[in-house]
């Protein structure tokens, strides 16, 4: 038995066989069911199932936990008068007892068991069948959470409805007819006896089924000391022309068709939905009490092959991307190389031009020439400019008798005036004299002396005024020219 600690509100159920793949899946609004006919020959139907499930998985259909439903006829059922117990030793003990009573070896079968009030109910299934049944599902990349026989799921679905001893007959068939029936018997929720009845589409299945059912009910009565009081039948009997009324009359029991949920088009789909509901109900309980097989794990070789395939794909993609990138970068590098050559040639040519031009050493030559030019064209170095500027501003009440223009920018004017005021006018006029673009001619004007002198009846004032065309130095202040 598998312990379940996680409760799943919605469960997906899946079964395949008898030429069909059936699904019952939870959706937002309820459930969705589907039946896919398997057209491949029976030995290749596993590949078809795998391909179909892979397609569905790629669409994102399988998002709920998956329960795989086995055909009831593929399993063997036994009620053991032992306790399940806890721990590996106890598990080994009941498995050994089950294998002993079934007469099978541990290498051949897989066991599932569940504790019942009457003992331990054990379900056995051949490992070969389980592997063949589950491998297509695992190859599709699906994760299987639960594996249980169909009759167990249906029993769990119907068990709440009755409390006395009762029986459930599950009918299964294919396109050709009714192939098998499985009778499950027990009391309330306790499942005690399950018997498969092979029919193989033979005529008069009602009578065969009724006869086998009577024998099974008698066996149940003998084993458990109480008769079967109610009978439920589940399965699409009408599809195979099976009338249930004669069956109920022959068995002499109060019989009825098992009411199934409405989700599903065919009876088989609705049976899947009912198993999903029963699973949900059991998961909601504190202890899970259904015999389920441990799901197969994907084979390591299969995983490795998947990984290899993915790695091959990734390597191929890397090659393509790397190749494209390499070609692009190479062509870009070639283009850039051409540009570099062109630009190097341009730079070399420019360097040659510059070398030729700098041979003339125009920088130092120009510095000398500009120095010379400034000296030649400085208006303050030109006595004509100074003479013109002074003449323009000189007042009529004074006259110059001597004019000296010195190299250091000193200009000395000596002359006479009619009055001291006239001398002041001369000094003021020289201060305001401008040259060239309106710049003051003198930076400083200084009156050296203004002495009154009487000559005959006239009095004149002799004066000497010094002006500096440039900022004078301290030593230059003393260099007043005197005749």
């Amino acid at each position, binding site marked *: 038995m598998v312990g379940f600690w996680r409760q799943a509100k919605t469960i997906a159920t899946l079964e395949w066989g008898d030429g069909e793949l059936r699904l019952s899946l939870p959706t937002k609004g309820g459930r969705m069911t589907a039946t896919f006919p398997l057209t491949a020959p029976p030995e290749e139907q596993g590949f078809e199932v795998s391909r179909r499930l892979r397609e569905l998985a790629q669409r994102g259909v399988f998002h709920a936990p998956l329960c795989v439903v086995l055909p009831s006829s593929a399993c063997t059922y036994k009620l053991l008068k032992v306790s399940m117990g806890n721990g590996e030793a106890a598990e080994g003990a009941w498995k050994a007892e089950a294998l002993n009573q079934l007469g099978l070896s541990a290498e051949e079968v897989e066991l599932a068991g569940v504790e019942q009030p009457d003992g331990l109910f054990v379900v056995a299934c051949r490992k070969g069948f389980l592997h063949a049944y589950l491998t297509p599902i695992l190859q599709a990349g699906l994760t299987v959470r639960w594996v249980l026989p169909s009759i167990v799921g249906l029993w769990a679905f119907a068990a709440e409805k009755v409390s006395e001893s009762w029986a459930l007959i599950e009918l299964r068939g294919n396109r050709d007819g009714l192939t098998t029936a499985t009778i499950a018997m027990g009391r309330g929720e306790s499942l005690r006896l399950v018997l498969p009845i092979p029919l193989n589409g033979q005529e008069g299945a009602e009578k065969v089924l009724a006869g086998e059912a009577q024998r099974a009910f008698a066996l149940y009565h003998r084993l458990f000391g109480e008769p079967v009081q109610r009978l439920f039948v589940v399965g699409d009997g009408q599809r195979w022309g099976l009338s249930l009324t004669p069956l109920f009359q022959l068995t002499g029991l109060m019989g009825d068709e098992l009411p199934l949920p409405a989700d599903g088009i065919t009876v088989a789909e609705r049976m899947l939905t009912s198993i999903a509901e029963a699973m949900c109900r059991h998961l909601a309980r504190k202890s899970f009490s259904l015999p389920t097989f441990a799901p197969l794990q994907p084979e390591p070789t299969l995983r490795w092959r998947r990984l290899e395939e993915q790695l091959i794909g990734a390597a191929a993609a890397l090659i393509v991307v790397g190749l494209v990138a390499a070609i692009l970068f190479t062509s870009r590098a070639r283009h*850039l190389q051409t540009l570099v050559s062109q630009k190097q040639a341009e730079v070399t040519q*420019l360097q040659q031009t510059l070398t030729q031009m700098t041979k003339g050493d125009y920088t130092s*030559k120009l510095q000398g020439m500009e120095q010379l030019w400034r000296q030649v064209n400085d208006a303050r170095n030109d006595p004509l400019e100074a003479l013109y500027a002074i003449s323009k501003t000189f007042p009529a009440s004074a006259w110059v008798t001597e004019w000296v223009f010195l190299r250091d920018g000193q200009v000395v004017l000596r002359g006479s005036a009619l009055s001291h005021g006239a001398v002041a006018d001369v000094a003021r006029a020289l201060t305001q004299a401008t040259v060239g673009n309106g710049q003051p001619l003198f930076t400083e004007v200084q009156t050296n002396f203004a002495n009154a002198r009487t000559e005959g009846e006239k009095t004149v004032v002799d004066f000497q005024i010094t002006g500096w065309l440039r900022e004078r130095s301290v030593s230059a202040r003393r260099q007043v020219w005197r005749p």
Partner: protein
Amino acid sequence: MRDGHRILLLGLVVIALLCWGWAASAFWQARSLSRQIAELDEQRLALSRRIAETQRQKERYEAMVRELGEPLKQFNPGALTARLMEQVEGALTQSRLKVETLQPLSWQVNAEGRWVRLPVQVTAVTTQPNLNDALQGITELLQRLRRLHPPLVTERWSMQVVSQPKPAFRVQAVLVWLVPVDEAVVKTLSPSRPLRGSVAPTLRR
């Protein structure tokens, strides 16, 4: 089959590594070339600027040469001084000034500015009938001196009114001829005679 898959996977991985190695190599090559192009562009820009600047300096220099005269490739101070005295005397005569003294002074070399300074001291008296005309003559003299080529700079100028024998101006001046010379000339002149040349004889009239 599984071995075949593994061999295929191994082969593909090797090819992928080669491809990516090639791509990485090409990428780094392209990146280094891009950087090289950027550096070359900067070099080209800098060279273009320097060429433009040099061209501008050349044009400016040629304009200066047109204005100030071609630098002399050979320096002959005696001939230059004689030519200066001749020109100055000619200007004085044209302006009706009587030359009293015309004395060349020692010449000097300005190594930094690449020119030679040839000074001449002159003393002259105006010959015009009155002071107004004399002043006009002096003005004309200064204008003539300014038009001389290579340029003549007046470093010292003194005018004094004299009354004997008639009212006139006595002019004393130091006129300097600034003659641009070639660098080779500067180099030949500088070691042996750094700045000053020999004093030329005084010419008195």
